[in-house]
């Protein structure tokens, strides 16, 4: 059985020292081993940005796509081979700005993949511009007088879009993050995991200390029930979205694959492509 070391390769990430993404990478590797995956049964699909490089840093099948499109690529991979475990990942700009259309639709489509967002509230690779997760007043190169646009409450949005698994975590909490990713992989449907992963170079507001001070663990809320969507929404709103843990999970709703009419139980990539002549003639006759 594979251990987390089997999911490592020798490539040195080009992330800045202290970047939160290192821990996210480690958590994915540990979670993959903990749920019993082998590297060749995992596909990590990523977008563009600092965090998008992650597909090259994990030893598994990896697909580094184009900006904002990790989700449609990942959904295509899963539809082609339902035997694979598919993780999509990228940053908050990738997923919630250029790729937001796909994020909302992936949520409501509910294909069984896990989406891990490394959320640092800023654009790092382009050297510090505002992101849709930046708070009002946040000063960046592109908002020198402070951002005037509202930040997206992504967890709340996911709930209203029909999400079946919504979780949030913090990159320093390696143990909790690992277990949330495991739960996401095991969830039968689309799982969204937003991870606060501080940018030590460009974001001087939302720092490690800032998150430690502001994040409320759901485990500290008495009688919190992650199967209660209303409670999930209320808790998020009361805490301005700054909670961590599994916020909501619907364990009943079947995944897209289980609902799609006629969709093969056997991985499509392993099915026979050939048609019998008899079947072909039948199809032709329908046009006669």
């Amino acid at each position, binding site marked *: 059985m594979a251990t987390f070391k089997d999911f490592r*390769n*020798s*490539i040195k990430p080009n992330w800045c020292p202290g970047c939160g993404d290192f821990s996210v990478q480690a958590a994915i590797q540990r979670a993959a081993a903990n749920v019993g995956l082998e*590297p*060749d*049964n995992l*596909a990590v*699909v990523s977008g563009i940005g600092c965090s998008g*490089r992650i*597909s*090259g840093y994990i*030893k*598994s*099948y*990896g*697909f*580094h*796509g*184009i900006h904002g*499109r990790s*989700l*449609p*690529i*990942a*959904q*295509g*991979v*899963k*539809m*082609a*081979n339902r*035997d*694979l475990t598919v993780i999509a990942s990228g940053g908050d700009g990738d997923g919630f700005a250029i790729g937001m*259309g*796909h994020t*909302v*639709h992936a949520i409501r*489509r509910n294909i069984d993949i896990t989406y891990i967002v490394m959320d640092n509230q800023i654009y790092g690779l382009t050297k510090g511009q505002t992101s849709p997760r930046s708070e009002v007043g946040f000063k960046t190169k592109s908002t020198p007088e402070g951002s005037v646009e509202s930040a997206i409450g992504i967890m709340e949005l996911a709930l209203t879009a029909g999400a079946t698994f919504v979780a949030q975590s913090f990159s320093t909490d390696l143990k909790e993050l690992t277990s949330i990713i495991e739960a996401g992989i095991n969830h039968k449907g689309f799982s969204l995991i937003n991870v606060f992963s501080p940018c030590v170079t460009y974001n001087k507001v939302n720092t490690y200390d800032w998150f430690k001070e502001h994040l409320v663990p759901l485990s500290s809320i008495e009688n919190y029930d992650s199967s209660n969507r209303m409670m999930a929404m209320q808790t998020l709103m009361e805490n301005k979205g700054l909670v961590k843990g599994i916020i909501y999970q619907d364990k009943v709703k079947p995944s897209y694959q289980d609902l*799609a*009419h*006629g*969709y*093969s139980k*056997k*991985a*499509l*990539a392993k*099915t026979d*492509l*050939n*048609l019998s*002549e008899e079947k*072909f*003639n039948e*199809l*032709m006759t329908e*046009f*006669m």
Partner: protein
Amino acid sequence: MIDQLSWKVGGQQGEGIDSTGEIFAMALNRLGYYLYSYRHFSSRIKGGHTNNKIRVSTSETRSISDDLDILIAFDQETIDVNVHELRDGGVVIGDSKFNPTVPEGLNVRLYSVPFTEIASELGTSLMKNMVAIGATSAVLGLPVESYLEVVEEIFARKGAKVVEKNMEAIQKGADHFNELSGGQIDGFQLNKADGKKRMFMIGNDAIALGFVAGGVRFMAAYPITPASEIMEYLIKKLPEFGGTVIQTEDEIAACTMAIGANYAGVRTITSSAGPGLSLMMEALGLSGMTEVPLVVVDTQRGGPSTGLPTKQEQSDLMAMIYGTHGEIPKVVMAPSTVEEAFYDAVEALNIAEEYQCPVILLTDLQLSLGKQSVEPLDFSRVEIRRGKLVDQELPDTDDKDGYFKRYEVTEDGISPRVIPGMKNGIHHVTGVEHDETGKPSEVAANRQKQMDKRLRKLKNLRFNVPVVKQGQHTDPDILLVGFNSTRGVIEEAMPRLEAEGFKVNHAHIRLIHPFPTDEMKPLIDSAKTVIVVENNATGQLASILKMNVGQHEKIKSLLKYDGNPFLPSEVVMKCKELV
């Protein structure tokens, strides 16, 4: 007795104009006639003039005709808009409901038949179409029973009573016409057809059928005119083979999802038209860079922007060849008939996998939507070739990370391809420049090697009949050149030009990119004048010819971009002007 006839039905969109044409054409197709139809329609569901022009012939035909023999009108507008197309002595049959009139001075015969009234008496005015079909068969001298089979199929689910009523409507329409005309009128009786069974289908049907036969098991697409029929067919059929279709949120998702699924080993396609293709351009580059096979259908329509969404045009050519930033290997193929569209759909899948690059299957609205008779397709020509897809167990690799050399530099530029899930096949795929295992690399020497490798893949592209050549002249006065649906109209113009003393050859280009220069050069060299017939305003194919072959002074353009397909007479007339 005549060998061909042109018939048109018109009215307001949404009142069954299409189905009237459909039933008429299906019945004649069953009798063994060759049908070719052209739908004039607008981008709206109800209202607005629409018509369906159908050519019936005892021999194969792939073009609409210059004139019209019979016009069926459900409103006066239909007559006003279309009466000028009628030949001398042509017939107009209008619904008495609107007191049809024809302009003075025209030699046409007008019959007023109470389509709506007869239908209402039988139970529902919806059957007015059947009454009109009945009147048509009286003109043609076709027995009413010719429609029985088709009517039974269409209305079978609604029960025998409905079938009976519809047949009665046809009978009444025929009876009423015969009463008015006092018996058969001359000049409209078709010679008997060969009675052979043929399909009656649109180009999009043929493409979709080709995809099913060619092993497509997944599709991701966004609805758009005139491509949606491909998606609709696969939605209906793929579940029978375990496959499925996802209607995505946009064309960017459609194309990237198709890339993801092809990467993971399933033949997956997407189809769209100009606006969708514009959105897919970045993804096409990803397919080229990551060497993931991809087939995209572009059913050209009137551009730019939303343009003329329901009209004929061929103006995406340059965008399909050059679209996407940077330089990638790409194949653009352009079938010229519905039959070819089927075989090319299968072949596009093979080429995409063999050369591991994007393939654009280009059609135009008239080829995609023009419904016509098609000879049965040859299943023995359907083969599935997956190129260098590895289907055997892989040995351990010598890479220090155990990565497979997915982008191994090879002589033909094509590398072995493994799909996720395979042991010892792990590799990285990225749109960033990469080394042989797919790891990002900016090393100059590697960059050059990988660019050269990708771009040499198509140097030896094997392609079946890149140019359809017609005409045997060694020194033609005119070489007519076209692509996609203009083939039929050019074929029809040729003998007319020959009859006027011109020596004419025809080259229809099926492989647009990489351009078949070796095939085209001798044809152009030998001709006095080259006339490129295309439905766009800037002469895109002519530019491509000039770029690849030269001979600028003898290459002339015959263009039409008003949204309608060429008529044979237009080609003849303009060729004479250009020579």
